[in-house]
């Protein structure tokens, strides 16, 4: 019992340690510029909401958050479907060359982003597809799919093999077995991978910057703009505020799906 409480205390402490810079960011976001850089450092200055207001309009935060949500959700959805199917094939199906295909999918992630972004822009321009959601979504899919394949391959491997045998005896096709039995059973792994995908798409800067102009611009581009604001200086308050605003949707999402982060359904499946 003591051991358990010690572990809980440890968990809380470790989480707080990791959140410390974030809490500092939150505190900055409510400070006036003159209270941010002080000697000695202070947790609280004169309370202000200016940082949330000042750039909110200038950096077009709201439409850009909407763009970011559309792109992150779109790219993650496509990647999860394509990637988990591939991961399933690689981990649980008999096929020749699984190693080579798996290795190639993984290696495709090794291309430095700088080598991808220029040609992708040139192609998109030729097709008249710059500044469109679909272009950014497809660009993100290229780096999300290998991760999904690889992570889901690992999660699927851990499942007992009786699972789809039973389903297929019941008359399910491979696809049926995959979607009706394997997917629900691996929900923890799927949700974790999905969260990872959304986060990666959420914070991507280089592709978003080059492939968009106006309509499809995402939040990281707005943030880079504020950070490089060489006109006035003293933009740390607004930057922290935008930082807080962009973290919120993901945290809310994570809290909503947290029950899937706890409940291991594999237990239930094997026992039931």
């Amino acid at each position, binding site marked *: 019992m003591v051991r358990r409480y010690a572990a809980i205390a440890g968990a809380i402490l470790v989480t707080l340690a990791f959140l410390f810079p974030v809490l500092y960011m939150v505190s900055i976001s409510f400070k006036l510029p003159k209270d941010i850089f002080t000697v000695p450092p202070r947790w609280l200055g004169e309370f202000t909401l200016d940082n949330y207001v000042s750039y909110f309009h*200038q950096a077009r935060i709201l439409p850009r958050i909407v763009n970011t949500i559309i792109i992150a959700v779109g790219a993650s959805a496509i990647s999860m479907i394509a990637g988990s199917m591939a991961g399933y094939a690689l981990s649980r199906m008999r096929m020749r060359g699984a190693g080579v295909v798996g290795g190639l999918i993984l290696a495709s992630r090794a291309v430095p982003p700088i080598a991808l972004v220029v040609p992708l822009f040139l192609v998109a321009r030729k097709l008249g597809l710059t500044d469109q959601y679909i272009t950014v979504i497809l660009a993100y899919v290229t780096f999300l799919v290998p991760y999904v394949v690889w992570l889901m391959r690992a999660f699927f491997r851990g499942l007992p093999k009786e699972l789809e045998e039973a389903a297929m005896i019941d008359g399910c096709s491979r696809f049926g077995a995959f979607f009706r039995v394997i997917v629900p059973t691996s929900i923890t792994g799927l949700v974790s991978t999905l969260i990872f995908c959304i986060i990666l798409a959420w914070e991507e800067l280089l592709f978003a910057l080059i492939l968009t102009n106006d309509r499809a611009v995402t939040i990281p581009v707005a943030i*880079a703009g504020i950070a*490089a604001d060489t006109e006035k200086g003293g933009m740390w308050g607004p930057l922290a505020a935008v930082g807080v605003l962009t973290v919120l949707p993901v945290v809310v999402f994570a809290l909503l799906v947290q029950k899937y982060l706890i409940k291991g359904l594999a237990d239930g499946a094997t026992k039931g």
Partner: protein
Amino acid sequence: MKSTRLVAAVAVLGLAVAACGSSAEEVPADGGGLGTAQQPVSIRVIANDAFAKQWQDKLVPEFNKKYPNIKVTIDGIPYNDQLAKTMLELTGTTATYDAVLADDPWIPQLAKTGALYDLKGQELAKWNDPEYDWADFHATPLAAGEWEGKQYAVPVRSNLLLMFYNKSLYKKAGVAEPTDETTWEQYFADAQKLVQDTDGDGKTDSWAVGTYFTKDPLTPTVWQTVLNSDGGKLLDDKMQVAFAGEAGVKALQTQVDLLKYAPPGASTYQFNEPLEAFRQGKTATMFMWGSVFKGTAVDKETTTLTPEEVGITTMPAGTAGPGAHRGIWSAGISKKSEHPAAAWTWLQWVTSKQGEQFVGKEFGTFPARNSTLDGTPPADWAGPVYQALKDGYEVASKGQMWRPRLPESDAVQQILALQTSRAMSGQATSQQAIDQAAKEITELLKTKGYGQ
């Protein structure tokens, strides 16, 4: 109301007839026209994200009062990737952007693509505003938009690296305030006294200087200015390295020495940190872009200082005179624009006397026109600033105080940034850093076909 519509409709018809026969590839003879109420024309501008929205919200409506039928969209790009993005956009077969904003050292690079109009040339002359006064521009900012004898861009936001000083801290240290005649020797003598303990608790709490010290393309501009004010140059007219000798080492060493009188951790200072240190009253001087003056001396929410406390003048003098370093945002027109008439009309308006005074008043932007510089400043605090600006323009032209004027400017500046950082952090002596930079720049220019 009805009659205007009728006129507009007739005008549209006329335009349609006039447009007949011109292929879609070529720019129509009327340059796309200036639009009508029924058929407004749209132009798109690529700008720095730092002021794109400001322009969209305030400058464009003001422009539309005079030209209601030209719709202007201003897209902001984060500064660090703006050059690459602009290059990508400009070099396509079709132009997304009609007008392009560029920082000081980018003009040769952009001009070399052949994608920009010569603003003083024949192609745009048809749409020249007869009242547009080229001669009114101060030569220093105007030169930023020029390359190989052609005017590819015109100044829209001018700026100079100047010396800010905190009068209260000078007083407390018992040191006379700097003037435009203060030499580097005098400055360093003062600097020792400006590292001080202001509240008497026995601990140093105020330092002499803050400026760029980190690894950044803007950091070498400080010692470049020192070099220039000793009459030295980075590259000579044949584009050969001219800083490799004693003068270059001395200039770089000057910036390294500044670090001794800067606050702890100053070796990591970029743009924001020296600014904050100065605004908090932690440093007595700051070598920084003049455009930050309002946020540093006037705006209560960003600074602890007052306009009376903050002085601004040119950087300390070398053997050839005081220093300043030019940083002008200029704008040009894309040759691939389908609406050059509207784009050039817009740009002429923005950089006209009227436009320049408007942005000066609304955004505190610094002017490039003599008439604005000599006219009534938009606010009381701007008086001394405009004076420093005028002095700075003079010395900047005299000593050619700007980043190298060649398409490889940014590549050169990157090499300088790295070697400057090595000297700053003690990984190399000034001599070693200068030698290495000279070697790498010579190598770079050789591969680019410059005779070395």
